[in-house]
């Protein structure tokens, strides 16, 4: 069985699906691997490093697509790749099924099975394959680094001979995986961190990282059984806006991470709220690609509104391609290990397995 | 103007109570079990009474009604003495071994 991987569109995506480390692991399962030439040179991994662990380097993507049984990708395969795909291939990646519906349907027309890892059920056994966790975690970290980079003052409190630099105040909206890591990172740098979320379990979690939790009073718990958030009521929204009003006046940096799976991101910072912030403040919207938690936020753009910098994030992982690839690639390995049966020496698409069943994309 | 020996005994009794009180407070809790077993062993000094009871009778009748009780008490107390001290020793040995291993 051959696992193949082709280059991504490097202008849009710097991550790679395979690192030498996990290549080694996959080969350890008894599989063969071939990848395209210069597969990861753009992030400093030379082809020789892959070869050292036993990976075949092919000069063109066509060669790979025509020979491999399993294609692993970061994003959806490119148009020209799809045409070259042979029947019975399996594809695994973060394929963003809602966005790439058409493309995927096209692929499904061939006898191809597609697994998109965003769809993983959040069960304990799937944790090691959970790409959302691994990538959101980095996103939370990077969000803080980026916003601090953009921020024109120093973050930590410093009492010096030339006066005191007050500590910056950071507000994190949404305390999921990304939000928690953002809290931790900002806290480390010495910021005064507060956070809010609709799920009541998150209060303890925020406090476990030394952050302050701002809770919307008398609110029901908005957690679904899957651990995700539900959409909130009007009344809740009003109360939350009131809370945000108080908070935004005080805070210097706001990091937005609130998401509701399968829905557009909740709009939490309205135009008026944004304008309440001090000039020089920063809103860093990790949810921008899903519609944004903040007014004025546009994916891939920085907008200035009355001195407030609103940063809409796009392709954030391109800022940490090495770490992100390494984690993603380990996630992929775990998924493949679950899929591949060493005895049968074949992939075992056991639809009884929740993990395999839920991630598989069915035509629609 | 002799003082009744009973009063001395009473003094001794009361002072010993104080000592018992203090002794225990200064024992580390992790040694409470050995402590219990040592005090148990010690309390078998009752054997002193047992021996007197068994021996003090007339020589002719070794086993008269009262000395029989004495002999029985000796056995009971002896079980306790040997058992108590040995078991304590075993327990404490356990503590020691752990120490030496390092």
């Amino acid at each position: 069985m051959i696992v193949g991987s082709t280059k991504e569109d490097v202008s849009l995506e710097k991550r790679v699906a395979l690192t030498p480390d996990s290549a080694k692991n996959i080969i350890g399962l008894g599989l063969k691997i071939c990848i395209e030439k210069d597969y990861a040179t753009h992030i400093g991994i030379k082809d020789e490093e892959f070869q050292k662990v036993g990976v075949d380097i092919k000069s063109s993507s066509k060669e790979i697509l025509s020979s491999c049984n399993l294609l692993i990708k970061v994003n959806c395969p490119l148009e020209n790749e799809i045409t070259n795909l042979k029947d019975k291939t399996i594809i695994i990646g973060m394929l963003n099924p809602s966005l790439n519906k058409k493309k995927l349907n096209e692929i499904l027309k061939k006898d191809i099975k597609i697994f998109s890892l965003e769809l993983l059920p959040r069960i304990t056994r799937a944790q090691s394959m959970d790409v959302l966790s691994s990538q959101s975690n980095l996103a939370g970290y990077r969000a803080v680094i980026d916003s601090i980079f953009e921020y024109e003052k120093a973050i930590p409190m410093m009492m010096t001979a030339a006066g005191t630099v007050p500590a910056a105040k950071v507000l994190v909206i949404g305390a999921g995986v990304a939000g928690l890591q953002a809290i931790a990172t900002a806290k480390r740098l010495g910021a005064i961190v507060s956070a809010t979320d609709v799920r009541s379990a998150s209060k303890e979690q925020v406090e476990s990282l030394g952050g302050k939790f701002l809770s919307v009073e008398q609110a029901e718990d908005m957690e679904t059984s899957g651990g995700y958030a539900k959409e909130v009521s009007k009344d809740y929204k009003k109360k939350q806006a009131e809370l945000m009003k108080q908070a935004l006046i005080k805070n210097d940096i706001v990091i937005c991470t609130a998401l509701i799976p399968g829905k557009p991101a909740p709009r939490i910072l309205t135009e008026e709220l944004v304008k309440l912030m001090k000039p020089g403040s920063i809103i860093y919207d990790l949810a921008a690609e899903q519609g944004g938690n903040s007014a004025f936020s546009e994916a891939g753009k920085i907008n200035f509104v009355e001195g407030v910098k609103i940063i809409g994030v796009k392709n954030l992982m391109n800022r940490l391609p090495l770490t992100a690839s390494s984690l993603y690639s380990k996630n992929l390995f775990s998924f493949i290990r679950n899929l591949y049966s060493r005895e049968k020496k074949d992939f075992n698409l056991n639809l009884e397995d929740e993990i395999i069943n839920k991630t598989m994309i069915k035509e629609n | 103007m002799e003082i009744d020996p009973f009063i001395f005994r009473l003094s001794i009794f009361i002072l010993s109570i104080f000592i018992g009180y203090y002794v225990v407070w200064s024992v580390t809790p992790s040694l409470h079990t050995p402590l219990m077993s040592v005090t148990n062993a010690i309390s078998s000094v009752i054997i002193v009474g047992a021996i007197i009871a068994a021996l003090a009778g007339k020589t002719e009748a070794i086993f008269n009604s009262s000395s029989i009780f004495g002999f029985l008490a000796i056995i009971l107390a002896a079980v306790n003495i040997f058992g108590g001290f040995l078991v304590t020793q075993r327990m404490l040995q356990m503590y020691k071994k752990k120490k030496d291993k390092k």
Partner: protein
Amino acid sequence: MLSANLSAIFYLISGILFILALRGLSSPDTSRQGNYFGITGMVIAIIVTFLSVGNFSTSLIYVLIFLLIGGAIGAFIAFKIPMTAMPELVAGFHSLVGLAAVFVAISAFLSPEIFNLGVTGDIKLASLIEMSIGAAVGAITFSGSIIAFLKLRGIMSGAPITFFGQHYLNLLLGLGVFALIFYLCISQLGSIFWILIAISFLIGVLLIIPIGGADMPVVISMLNSYSGWAAAGIGFTLENSALIITGALVGSSGAILSYIMCKAMNRSFFSVILGGFGADSSKQKTEDKKEKPVKSGNAEDAAFLMKNASSVIIVPGYGMAVAQAQHALREMVDKLKKNEIKVSYAIHPVAGRMPGHMNVLLAEANVPYDEVFELEDINNDFANADVAFVIGANDVTNPVAKTDPQSPIFGMPVLDVEKCKSVLFVKRSLSPGYAGIDNELFYKENTLMLFADAKKMTEDIVKNLE
């Protein structure tokens, strides 16, 4: 034959040796020495008694024979008994001391002449009082210890046995004892003496049956105390200061020890001692426990275990984060390392609630990176470590993930903490973690639960590591 004065001095010496024996227990280092003191004291007491009685007749041989028989039995039991059966063993031994006291008292009652207490039917008042108290307390100790033994051994159910009017009955019997002693003093009648002993046996049974299994350690210590008082009573009768000193020592130390234990367990001393009063709460307790027994300890136990370990592995989890115990933990580890104990941290990939959660906190507490290991790197080390200190972690140690395919966490790699010689679990209760499932490790033989807030407990352990 030893003079009265000389033997009195020797008895004093043996009393002092007993004091030193208990003193030795104050630290593990001197504890064995303490035991030797105790043995020496006992040997002296026995030899002096031989010499002072001075009756080197055939009976002496019998005495020696009986002594050896008893000794052999005792030694046999001591070597054979498994360490885990300690509590019942001690309870059993107590019963012997109690019975011995009763026997000596009977003997004195039957032949007061040989003890210089007057003659049958006209025993000195003081002696009579003393010996009846000795006999009564001894009897209570005997029957009480037997019940405790049976309960601990599992032969009798550990559940408290209560019935209506229990307290009144006890009260009545107690008063009865006093009345009997009073009447005995007046009448010097043998039958009353026997009745007294019988009633005391009954009281012993009644006192212990309403006490639940959980309170047994306290009861044992209390019975210990009783046996001391019995010995002291006999000591007064026999005018023997070794018996008086030791009796008082054992009596008061036992009482204080049960008090200390009650305090540590947060139980009311009186309700435990007065038996029945403990009934309600212990009933409730057993219900809480879901029937499965857990061993729960305190900071001192934990400190002791770790101090005597040569390697300790720390397993932090979400609870450490909630309690913000990282600084205290670091301090604890510093203390351990000062004692030349090898300490490492085992970080489970999903410990906490966010990737790298534990790393953030440990870094904040300045834990050196080279002491922090990921699961694969450390999982084999548990088998060789003495103690796993699991602080606020739960799911990540749950072996059900390896064994039960039905479990929601099946398939997750877990830290093999149970392979350590001892496992300490710091958490506030037996409640489950994130995954909502029970952790069978809590009930394992080599697990000690430390129920408390993680920070509080760790700080307490630090204190006890001095």
